[in-house]
C-alpha cells in the first residue's frame, strides 16, 4: 500500500543555506493494509520528516514514495492532493501547535466538512462528529465549542485522531500520538489503533518510546540518524536485536523485575550472536540493509 524507496531528505541549514543536513538517508519501507509499522528512534532521527514526506507536506530530496501505486511526490495540483488526503491522514506530534489559536478547536472538523462533505446536512454531520468523538473516548460536552488553550494536550491529540476518522482513511501517520497522553488514555488510544488495524487501515506509528512500539506494531523500524538500523517483525526485533544500536536502546529500557547491574551482567554473560553489518565507503550516502533472518534486516553502523 505505502512504499518508500531509497528516500532521502536533505535540509539546507546555516545562515545562507551553506551547509546541509541529511535528515533521512536511503530509507526503504513498506506498510501493508491492516499493518502497524512503528518507526522508532530518538529525537532528531528523522521520524517526523518521514511522516511529513508520506503526507506530501514536504518533498523528498531523492527517492520515491508510492501509495497504492501512485507516486505521492508527483501529486499535481490541488485536486489530486485533496483526493490523496481523503485516504491518507496524519496526526502531528505537537497537538498545541496543530490548532490555530484564534479559532475554536472543533473547527478542525468543520474544515473537513467544507472540503469533503459539503452536502451533508447539519444533523447528519453532528451525528458523525459525535460518533468519532465517542470513538476516541472524549465527552463531547468537554471538548466541543472550546478554544484550544482550554483543552489539554491529550484532549487535543484525540480530537485530531477523531478528525482523521471522519474521512474514509486507509493510511494513518501517527506522529508520537501517545506521548502526550496519561497512562490510562494511552491504553485507550492504543486499543483504538488496534481497532483501526482490524478494519484494514495501515498505520505508520512514530514513537520514541520502545515499549509502546512493542505493544501495537506488527513490524518495527529502528531509525538512527536518518538511516534504518534495524527492521523486522516487532517480536524478532525486540527478542533478538541484531544491531548494536538497537541492543543499546533495548538495554536502556528499565525493566521492572531486574536491576541495571543484573541486565548488564546478563548481557556480558551471553553476548548476542554477532551479525556482520553492511558497510558503505566514505562519501557514499546509501544505507544498505542485509537480511539476517527472514524479514529481519540490519543496516549500517553510523558513528
Amino acid at each position, binding site marked *: 500500500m505505502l512504499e518508500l524507496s531509497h528516500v532521502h531528505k536533505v535540509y539546507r541549514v546555516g545562515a545562507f543555506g551553506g551547509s546541509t543536513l541529511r535528515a533521512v538517508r536511503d530509507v526503504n519501507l513498506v506498510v501493508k493494509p491492516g499493518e502497524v509499522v512503528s518507526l522508532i528512534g530518538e529525537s532528531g532521527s528523522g521520524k517526523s520528516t518521514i511522516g*511529513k514526506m508520506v*503526507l506530501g*507536506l514536504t518533498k523528498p530530496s531523492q527517492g520515491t514514495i508510492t501509495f497504492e501505486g501512485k507516486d505521492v511526490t508527483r501529486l499535481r495540483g*490541488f485536486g489530486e*492532493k*485533496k483526493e490523496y*488526503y*481523503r485516504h491518507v*491522514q*496524519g496526526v*502531528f*506530534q*505537537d497537538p498545541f*501547535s*496543530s*490548532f*490555530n*489559536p*484564534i*479559532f*475554536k478547536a472543533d473547527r*478542525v472538523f468543520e*474544515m*473537513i466538512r467544507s*472540503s*469533503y462533505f459539503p452536502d451533508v446536512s447539519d444533523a447528519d454531520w453532528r451525528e458523525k462528529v459525535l460518533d468519532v468523538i465517542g470513538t476516541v*473516548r*472524549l*465527552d463531547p*460536552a*468537554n*471538548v466541543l465549542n*472550546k*478554544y484550544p*488553550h*482550554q*483543552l*489539554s494536550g*491529550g*484532549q487535543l491529540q484525540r480530537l*485530531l485522531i477523531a478528525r482523521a476518522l471522519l474521512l474514509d482513511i486507509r493510511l494513518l501517520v501517527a506522529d508520537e500520538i501517545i506521548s502526550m497522553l*496519561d497512562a*490510562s*488514555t494511552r491504553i*485507550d488510544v492504543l486499543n483504538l489503533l488496534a481497532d483501526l488495524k482490524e478494519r484494514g487501515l495501515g498505520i505508520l506509528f512514530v514513537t520514541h518510546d520502545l515499549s509502546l512500539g512493542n505493544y501495537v506494531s506488527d513490524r518495527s523500524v529502528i531509525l538512527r540518524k536518518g538511516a534504518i538500523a534495524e527492521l523486522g517483525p516487532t517480536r524478532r526485533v525486540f527478542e533478538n536485536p541484531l544491531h548494536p544500536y538497537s541492543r543499546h536502546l533495548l538495554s536502556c529500557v528499565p525493566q521492572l523485575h531486574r536491576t541495571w547491574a543484573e541486565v548488564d551482567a546478563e548481557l556480558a554473560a551471553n553476548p548476542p550472536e554477532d551479525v556482520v553489518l553492511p558497510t558503505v565507503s566514505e562519501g557514499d550516502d546509501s544505507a544498505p540493509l542485509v537480511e539476517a533472518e527472514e524479514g529481519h534486516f540490519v543496516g549500517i553502523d553510523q558513528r
Partner: protein
Amino acid sequence: MSNVAGAPGSDGTTEPQPAVERRTSETLHFAKRNPKLLIGSGIVLILLLLGLIGPLFVDHGPNVYIGPQSQPPSAEYWLGTTTFGQDIWAQFVYGLRSTFMVGFLGGGIAFVIGTAIGFIAGYKGGIVDEILNMLTNVVLVLPALVVLIVAVAYLDIKGVFVQSLFIGMTSWPWAARAVRSQALSLATRDYVDLARLSGRRTGKIITTEIAPNMSSYLVMSFILLFGGAVLIAAGLDFIGLGPTDGVSLGLMLQNSFTWSALHLGMWWWFIPPGAGITAIVGSMYILNVGLDEIFNPKLREL
C-alpha cells in the same frame, strides 16, 4: 474509562470566556488607556473629518481668485489669501482631502502588492520565494524617487490617482519583506499543515490561517505605508511633479515657496500645509507606536 475529568482545563468551568472575545476586550482595555494611540488617532480623525467635511462649507473652488491679495488671516479668510487672492483655508481643506486620498490609495496599493508578495513568498518558499525576493530587492534598491520623477515627468501626470498608483507601485518592498518574514515563521506551524491535510487551497490557508495571526502586524504596515505615501506625494508636489489639476498640501507648499512667501513674511501661506503634512504623518507614527504597545504586551506600560 475516559479519563477527561483529570485532564487540566477540561472541567469547563475555568474559562467561560472565549479566547477571541477575551483577547478583543483585553486589547480594547489597553487601547483606551494608551495616550499615544488616543492622541495619534484623535489628530488623524480630526484632520480626516476636516478634509471630508471642510470642502462642503466652501462655496468656491480652492484655486479661484476670490478676494484681496496677500491678506493675513481674518474673520472672512480664516487662513488669509495668497499673492493671487486665493482662499488658503479652501486650499487647505481640499488639500487635506487629496493628501488623505494619496495616503489611502498609494498606501493601499503598496499594501496590497506588498502583502500579496510577502505572503506568497513566505508561504511557498523555495524557488518562488527566491524569485519574489529578487523582485523585491530590485524594487527596493531602485531609487524610487528618481523613477517616480522620470515617470511622472514623461507621463504628464494629471491626477491624484495616477500619482498614487506610482507611489503604490514603488513603495511596497519593505512591507513585502516584513510580511514575508512573519509568514515564513507562521507557515511552519502545524495548523497550517493540518489545513493542507484538510484539503484547503493555498489562498484560503493564507487568508484564514496565517493572516489573522498577524493582523496587528498588517495594520501597522498599512499605517506606515500610508504615512510614507503622504510624504512621497508631498515631495513630488514640492518639486513640481504633483497633480496639475487640483490642489494638495504639497502643491500649496510648492506655490508658497515659488512665490517667495517666506521672504515676504506670508507665514499663513506656508505654515498650514507644512503643519498639515507634519501632523498627519507624525500622528500616524505616534498611532503606530501606540498600536505596537497594545499588541505587544512586552511594551505595555503598566
